[in-house]
């Protein structure tokens, strides 16, 4: 092995990659700059749009928060995402355990596994219209109905992840607990559930990202309820912003901020989670 080669950096590639970052940074820069400006500063020339604002005032943000009812939308988004993630971890891991432990020897569990996993091929477009009718009939055309839908939409993926992970957990652990007189139910929650912690992290990250950014499900299901999620608020208030792009961009930035903060704090977990979810 060339030991020196390990310390030598490939600078041309590094510089190319840094230059390429402009494609990521520029849209974000544009969003921030426009969000802080006043409409009077926006001339039709490029420099008028992209120069730094004269004063860094938060008035656009205050106004955008008022127009989009930011705190309520944020609360709804947090509620939907939080409850979906918690229920997914609890229920999907449980069914993943029951199916994972039995599908090799039982036809019924193997069938159930294939039945649920094949749900991955069902596009939302075909479920959309019947689900709207159904949730309205059942009186759950609200946040609760949206959460139930998500529980089902992410079940195929999460079931695959959990039952795949379970293969690595020896059954001997459960037998040891059984000798101590524990029931299967307590064994699951006391022993297996904690061991699956790395998979819980993966499931939490993937589910949270998809649910938080999803527009279509709450759009069709909660449309009559007057409720908004954070992305949905951008859609609903699109007309009210009119041509006041400064206000609109302040609102966009506010909508992007929660996930950006989340990403800065747990970047590592998010990257690991996303890769695990896709590759396994």
């Amino acid at each position: 092995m060339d030991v020196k080669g390990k310390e030598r950096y490939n600078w041309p590639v590094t510089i190319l990659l840094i230059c390429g970052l402009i494609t990521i940074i520029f849209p974000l820069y544009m969003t921030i700059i426009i969000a802080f400006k006043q409409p009077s500063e926006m001339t039709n020339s490029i420099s008028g749009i992209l120069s730094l604002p004269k004063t860094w005032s938060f008035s656009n943000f205050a106004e955008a928060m008022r127009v989009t009812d930011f705190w309520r939308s944020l609360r709804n988004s947090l509620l939907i995402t939080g409850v979906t993630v918690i229920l997914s971890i609890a229920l999907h891991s449980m069914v993943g355990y029951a199916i994972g432990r039995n599908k090799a020897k039982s036809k019924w569990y193997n069938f159930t596994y294939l039945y649920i996993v094949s749900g991955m091929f069902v596009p939302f477009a075909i479920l959309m219209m019947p689900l709207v009718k159904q949730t309205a009939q059942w009186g759950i055309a609200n946040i609760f109905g949206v959460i139930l839908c998500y529980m089902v939409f992410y079940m195929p993926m999460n079931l695959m992840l959990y039952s795949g992970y379970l293969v690595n957990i020896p059954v001997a652990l459960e037998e040891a607990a059984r000798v101590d007189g524990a029931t299967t139910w307590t064994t699951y929650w006391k022993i297996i559930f904690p061991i699956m912690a790395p998979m819980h992290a993966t499931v939490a990250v993937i589910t949270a990202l998809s649910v938080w950014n999803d527009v279509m499900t709450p759009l069709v299901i909660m449309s009559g309820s007057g409720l908004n999620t954070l992305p949905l608020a951008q859609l609903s208030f699109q007309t009210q912003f009119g041509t006041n792009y400064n206000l609109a961009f302040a609102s966009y930035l506010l909508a992007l901020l929660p996930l950006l903060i989340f990403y800065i704090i747990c970047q590592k977990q998010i990257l690991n989670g996303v890769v695990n979810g896709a590759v396994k």
Partner: protein
Amino acid sequence: MKYANDRQRTFMLMTIPVVVLFFAFNTLPLIKGVIYSFTNFRGYGTYDWVGLRNYIDLFQDARVGKSYLFTLKMAVLATIVTNVISLILALGLNSKIRFKSALRGLYFIPNILGALVVGYIFNYFFTYIIPALFNTTSILASTTWAWVGIVIVCAWQAVAMNTIIYISGLSTVPEDVYEAGSIDGATGWTKFKHLTFPLIIPFFSINMVLSGKNFLMVFDQIMALTKGGPAQSTESISYLIYNNGMAGGQFGFQSANAVLFFVIIVAFSVAQLRFTSSKEEQL
């Protein structure tokens, strides 16, 4: 024996409620969707059975045909663009570079941002920044070029995800393969073509399926960028089903469209999995 009973009962109790939930929110609406597709339901009021009428109309409807063409064209181009860029990016981010983790972290940002808001930001970019820079009109207003705008925005976000998957693929390639290769004189493109790429084919197939399927179902970007316009030139299948099925009084007809779309997605997924798994076997 008592233990075995408890174990089987617990497994059943764990499974059945979840299966019931799955049935109620996946299988049941799927069945209802198929049933609606044989009716002239408008979304309200009474309806009649029309047999295969909707399906026959589907193949004669110019707007539906246009939306399938657009979606296919867009998905194919976006999949190619995304995979080429993300493969190059992954090779760069996997080499011996300075600031490796920071660069990887920054290049992943587009993936965590909501597609709708990203769409609105790019909408502004295409409508005001690009025309001011190059003294042209907005590509989103052009029936010939608007779809390219959609491809750009979709690829911008999808590249982040695919890159990360390629990076994790590249990190599985053992160092001694390259050493053996360099003895044989493999460098640059030959090295990539004969050593690296065959070894990351499983990751290539994951990315093809993942991005292909996502692009076929494109919705948010359409909503934010063009709303299907101009002149319905960028109406994706999902958008058409949503727009005409929910508000346009074509509940039954668009249900038939959704069933056709479902069949296509299944066929696409199965074909792609077959194709890539046969390629893997050859190695």
